[in-house]
């Protein structure tokens, strides 16, 4: 009995000592400089080296994340907790990364021309003050008052008051800090992810007829957008259209249809699918296109009918070869809130 215990202690102790010494020696002799970020990401990862992420171990994934080749939430084992830590190290705001940058958007288009005034306001030139007097000078109780409280509060100068008496937001400069959202007494500014390109720029929940009387560009709850949406992403709730951005693919069909132009997007910059020569003719894109804009024979390169294409990107996502690019018709530039071009 005692003998077994002593021998096992000795052998295990010996092995442990030898291995520990070996590792110490190796880590002294063979120390190699690495990107400190790789080390800290590695630290955050589980370190089980299970390979479930598809990379060679946690070290491999850490390098891939630092190189930007893998998303911060690539580790299946660590789950959300690890993803958050890695995101923090990498300086990415949210787990979902880049496309989720939030910017402020103005949800009212009722400028001097479009909206009716019910009274003239001559008091202090401040939205907050004006809104206290019979809920503002415009007939629509949801309308932007237009004295530029948001412009004054913006710390980066991303908001300017446009000719129509409505704020125009420079999405490049906007940091998504949300100060304007808090400042606006009418709550017509909202923060939304940059990748959302289609917006219902009206919050008026009056009956359709009342909205039409108060403003030329209000949502009159006609539900035409609902009918035309291929993705069931827009619904009229409480007399105003609301977009479900989980489903919306920026196809802009509703923008085309909206009779009052209350729904906007940078329409002229609608994306179009373009198929390049790596297409192998698998027909997956054609099968999945909601508007049948893609045609082609099996094993031959497919073509996109640019007239029909609504730029929903489904084909690009489904394409196994990555042969489909979504190209904006007028150069690949970022959309802005400028309403002028939205109406072209």
């Amino acid at each position: 009995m005692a003998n077994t215990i002593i021998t096992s202690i000795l052998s295990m102790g010996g092995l442990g000592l030898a291995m520990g010494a070996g590792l110490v020696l190796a880590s002294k002799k063979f120390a190699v400089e690495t990107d400190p970020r790789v080390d800290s990401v590695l630290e955050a990862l589980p370190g089980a080296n299970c390979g479930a992420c598809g990379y060679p171990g946690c070290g491999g994934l850490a390098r891939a994340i630092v190189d930007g080749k893998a998303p911060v939430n690539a580790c299946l084992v660590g789950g959300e907790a690890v993803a958050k830590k890695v995101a923090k190290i990498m300086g990415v705001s949210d787990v979902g990364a880049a496309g989720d940058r939030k910017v402020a958007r103005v949800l009212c288009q009722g400028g001097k021309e479009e909206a009716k005034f019910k009274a003239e306001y001559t008091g202090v030139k401040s939205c907050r003050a004006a809104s206290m007097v019979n809920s503002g000078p415009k007939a629509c109780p949801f309308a932007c008052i237009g004295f530029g409280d948001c412009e004054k509060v913006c710390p980066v100068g991303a908001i300017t008051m446009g000719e129509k008496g409505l704020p125009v937001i420079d999405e490049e400069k906007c940091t998504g800090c949300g100060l304007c959202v808090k400042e606006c007494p009418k709550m017509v500014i909202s923060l939304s992810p940059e990748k959302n390109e289609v917006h219902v720029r009206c919050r008026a929940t009056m009956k359709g007829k009342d909205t039409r009387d108060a403003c030329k560009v209000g949502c009159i709850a006609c539900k035409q957008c609902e009918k035309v949406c291929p993705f069931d992403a827009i619904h009229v709730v409480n007399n105003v259209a609301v977009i479900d951005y989980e489903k919306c693919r920026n196809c802009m069909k509703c923008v085309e249809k909206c009779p009052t132009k209350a729904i906007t997007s940078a329409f002229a910059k609608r994306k179009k699918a373009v198929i390049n020569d790596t297409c192998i003719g698998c027909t997956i894109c054609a099968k999945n296109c909601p508007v049948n804009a893609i045609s082609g024979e099996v094993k031959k390169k497919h073509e996109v009918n640019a007239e029909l294409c609504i730029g929903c990107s489904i084909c690009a996502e489904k394409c196994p070869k990555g042969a489909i690019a979504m190209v904006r018709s007028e150069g690949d530039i970022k959309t802005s809130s400028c309403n002028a071009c939205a109406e072209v």
Partner: protein
Amino acid sequence: MLKDLAFLVVGTVLVNNFVFARFLGQCPFLGVSSKLETSIGMGMATTFVLTMTAVAAYFIQYYILEPFGLSAFLQIVSFILVIASLVQLVEMIVLKISPTMYNAFGIYLPLITTNCIVLAVALLIPQKGYNFIESIVFGLSAGLGFTLALILMAGIREDLEFADVPEALRGPAIVFLTAGLLAMIFLGFTGLVPL
């Protein structure tokens, strides 16, 4: 003698393939089999570690555990301790000596500690009573069998990308189903050599 070794190789690589017949090494098999290139690197690294493990296991078993009568209860602990440390050691050495070699297969090394094939090979060597040469051959062919499975799977998965797989089956599910078909094929090898 040579014939027995040949049987051992065929038996380990094809008949009792570690992935398809013994269900070992599934995690790296699923994780790293998405690209042909990485699966080759992974296969090489595993084969290397397995051969090394076979040697280490042989020495621990017959020079430490057996003489002291400890093999009944210290096998698992001592094998895994040595494997884990050795792998870490080799990784550090390879990284220092040759960065190119490290990129080709060294980066897969840490992944291998938790590959159950490694411990299984170590445990099977004393269980089956292999001698020194047989142990090395066994370790080597276990690695080759794993590499074969990885490469086959990677080849299929690269083509599988063209298929319009039902959404729920995407990811691991379709890989399992494919592995099931491959396992059926490997069933055909049973009885090929006397075991």
